[in-house]
């Protein structure tokens, strides 16, 4: 059951795939909440990279970074939800493609 037995590349590849899935989600979904969830997925993919490197180097710095990324993600989630709520009250929609009065 030694984590070290799984090569670093596997973690990096997995996190890259997760990251891309998240990015694709941002580009394809219309619902602001789901877009934000996709962003969270991207952040967690990065967390995986950080933890993998941290384990690889035996340096706790990367893991500490992960904590901060999580805290920041939580703060962003709170703010994001608030913004989406305010948007819904204002325009009765959470679909981002319907929010485009400012353009050109």
């Amino acid at each position: 059951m030694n984590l070290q037995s799984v090569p670093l590349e596997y973690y990096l590849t997995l996190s890259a795939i997760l990251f891309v899935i998240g990015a694709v989600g941002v580009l394809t979904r219309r619902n602001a909440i789901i877009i934000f969830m996709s962003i969270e997925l991207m952040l967690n993919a990065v967390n995986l990279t950080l933890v993998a490197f941290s384990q690889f180097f035996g340096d706790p710095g990367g893991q500490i970074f992960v904590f901060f990324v999580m805290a920041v993600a939580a703060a962003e989630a709170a703010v994001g939800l608030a913004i989406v709520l305010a948007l819904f009250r204002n325009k009765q929609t959470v679909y981002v493609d319907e929010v485009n009065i400012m353009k050109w």
Partner: protein
Amino acid sequence: MLDLAYLIPLFPLIGFLITGFFGKKLKSEALIGGIASAAVGLSFAVAATLFFTLTGLPADARSHTTYIFSWLAAGNFNVDVAYQVDQLSIVYALIVTGIGTLIHIYSMGYMHGDKSYPRFFAYLNLFIFMMLNLVLANNFLLTFLGWEGVGLCSYLLIGFWYDRKFEGVNIRFTGDAANKAFIANRIGDFGVLIAMFLIYKTFGTLEYNAVNTAAAVAPPDAGIMTAIALLLFLGSTGKSAQLPLAVWLPDAMAGPTPVSALIHAATMVTAGIFLVARNATLFALAPDAMTVVAVVGVTTALVAATIGIVQNDIKKVLAYSTVSQLGFMFAALGVGAFTAAVFHVMTHAFFKALLFLGSGSVIHGMHEEQDIQKMGGLKKYMPVTHRTFLIGTIAISGIPPLAGFFSKDEILWMTFEHGGHGPMWIILAIAAFCTAFYMFRLYYLTFGGKERFDHHRLHPHESPVTMTLPLNVLAFLSVVGGFLGVPYALGFFASDHPNLLENWLGPIFSQANGILGRGEHHSIHAIEYVLMAASIAIATAGILLASKLYKEESEKPAELARKFKGAYNLLLHKYRIDEIYQALVVSFIYQFSERFLWKVFDVKIVDGLINGAAKTTQSAGESLRRIQSGVTQNYALLMIAGIVVILTWLAVG
């Protein structure tokens, strides 16, 4: 002590800031005018102090540069804000601040009740500040800043009453006159700018002393020197209203009269002379350019003087007189008589400011009437104005011992001695004759003879003391100012060097004089006395002719005008210079553009280039804005695309 030079421009700057920003808050006119006048007065006090400090120093130590701060520095290119106090700049500073103070005081009376009273004084103070930067600068760039600054102030002040009617060729409002001045000056500035580039390229610096020394020690190619000198002179013709850029000055009379006196007679228009005098060495190294300067000066002097004979607007007569006198100064510069030119700048500042202020007093007393045909007999209504105006008129006509005689006679003598002995002297003598004639014509039509105005409508009155005081001071200066430059021929019995101004300015021009081969020798030529007598006789003749024609009401002038109808009309219309320019600039170019430019060049090429560039920008903007769809995810898509491209390029490329 000499480090205090920065105070000279500082006070007017403070004055400008106060009157400009808090002028509206300060309700009292006396306070605003007082602050503005005091600011210039303090500058004058400082300048005078520095002057006396300089006199206490040995002649070769009378140049001091105060570095304020480094303005621009990049590599070897270094320009400081630094003020250079020396014999030339202190003379100019004294003229600017001294006459400036008097005109500020005068303006307090003249502008009384104007709705833009604070604005006027703010502009005046700003002008003084800029003018002082121009003359005190130790390098071309700072002078150029002042040069542009005075141009701006001149523009603002000509157009001060921007919605008033004003007659002129293609001019209907004073604002148009301001624009005309602006454009003519821009042409000149272009020359100065190019000259600066050339100077920097040739000498690697823009500091006056360094440039002039470098030029004297190792003169570069004569072609470059001629180019530099001619370009600088182009700038001078713009600022000092010489042919072919002289057209703007008469129209600049649209501004308030104190402005005409300060800017368009005493100070700004002599900036061109300053520029040449400051770079005397550069000009001395370019003899061809010197000839051009002399010829332009002489021609302008004559042309403007003849136009002045038939003008009927009191200020326009004075304006053409100014152009003509400036021509005298350039003629002096052109023959290498730098001291004589500066001397004439000074005396001219005295009597021309006096005449303008006097005319302002007349206009004030006549309720904005400017046509001398509708005046006459003002002698008894305005005694002080009359007396001082008469002094100014005599001074400019060149009757000894008033100031104008000495400076004008020195120029005449120098052009005779160094300018080919004959032709130039004769032309200038004719110009001098015209000067005496039109000035006395002006005097008689205004103050003498019958009253030609409507008594029921107009009640001429003497001006308040704030206006008459400067008149008296300037009149005094016009009387005694000439003794600063007594020629050796007249003063040899009192001293070996009776010409105080020449002694004073000597070190400044010694380099240039050395190049020109002028020693400091003095000798008495019999012919000098003959010429002196001749010039007095010429002036007297002009005066007598004027008094014969205009002293009493008579039909003679009208008769003459009828007899020489062609010449009269030509003069009345200023040799049709404006119309010629009109024809050249508008008609000719119009035809040219209609036939060629528009149909071939413009449609085919310019449309393809200029409009094309503008259209390309516009349409590029239009297509770029399409990318900005307003939809968040499209932005994200572009970002992703950018990220992919960048990362691929980093990884592969």
